[in-house]
């Protein structure tokens, strides 16, 4: 009986941890997800990367659309410095039909994404990271053999107008890592579209 309740307790804690997702300092797991070109992408495919800009994204969300050009610019600037963008669509297309794999391909073509735009089919990666909205950024840095979460949050402080941005949270965080410093802040919040799950 006692053993059963301890087991249940552990199960509960595991479930709680599971829904919460990663926090800054946690080790991030790799994934193998299908890109818009049909090939599968893992972070282990990039042995030279110093880290990754993992962005939970989608097709339909106006906040994402407002940031797509900035996502492209971030990749263009930071992939060469060791921090490529990987965008993940984790929305369930049965709940949000505009976020299907086929429409991801269409959007990637339209915008000419220079980074992988991969599909988390069946929402297997989403609960590990604990992303709740799009866009939701997880900046990872390589520490030895591991990838650690260095920053979680927004790209910057103005979704409406890139020219009015005062704080480039994500770019500043990457610059800090490049200089061997800790990002400050390492966690920000922003309004975004809920990542759609089956209820």
């Amino acid at each position, binding site marked *: 009986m006692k053993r059963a309740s301890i087991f249940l307790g552990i199960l509960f804690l595991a479930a709680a941890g599971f829904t919460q997702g990663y926090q800054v300092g946690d080790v991030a797991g790799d994934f193998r997800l299908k890109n818009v070109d049909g090939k599968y992408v893992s972070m282990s495919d990039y042995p030279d990367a110093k880290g990754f800009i993992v962005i939970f994204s989608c097709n339909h969300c*106006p906040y994402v659309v407002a940031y797509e050009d900035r996502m492209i610019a971030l990749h263009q600037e930071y992939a060469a410095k060791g921090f490529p963008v990987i965008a993940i669509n984790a929305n369930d297309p049965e709940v949000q039909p505009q976020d299907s794999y086929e429409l991801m391909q269409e959007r990637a073509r339209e915008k000419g994404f220079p980074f992988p735009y991969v599909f988390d089919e069946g929402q297997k990666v989403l609960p590990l990271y604990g992303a709740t909205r799009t866009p939701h950024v997880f900046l990872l840095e390589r520490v030895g053999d591991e990838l650690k979460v260095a920053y979680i949050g927004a790209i910057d402080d103005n979704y409406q107008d890139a020219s*009015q941005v005062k704080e480039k949270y994500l770019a500043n965080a990457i610059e800090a890592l490049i200089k061997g410093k800790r990002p400050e802040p390492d966690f920000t919040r922003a309004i975004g579209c809920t990542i759609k799950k089956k209820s």
Partner: protein
Amino acid sequence: MTKKILLGFSLVVSLLTMINKVYAVDGRAIRKVSFDEFEPRLHLENDTIYVVNFWATWCAPCVREIPVFETIQEQYKDQKVKVLLVSLDFPNQLESRVIPFVDRMGMKSEVVLLDDTDSNRWIPLVSEEWTGAIPATVIFARGFRGFYEQEFHLEELESIIKPLLN
């Protein structure tokens, strides 16, 4: 005397700014507010139950639950329940999108548009629990405060509000 003129002048100026922030199409008016202007409405202390919902016209689950809030506002209109719908639509779409939407849905609840890009500052001031995803709802009354980052169904919302009515 000079003081009075100055006071009158500043009153006119502030009235003008207020008018400037109210957008109306076909008689339906919606106010654009900054977070600082809006924040006191999250901390009213009286005998009313406040239901403050953050939504946007482009957010499918938000649009789905709008009738739930409308029903609540209608159902409890004789009791002290106040629904406030805070749109997070793009401010430049207030007249082209938000007001027509509100009209089309025949929405009776009060709607304001929160025009404040520095959401990292104000999200935790709404609730420390809020990740920033919408829909999100704050329900508060004397001695009660709840935050919900979810889509509501009527029964669930009623089950929160009913006990607060007594």
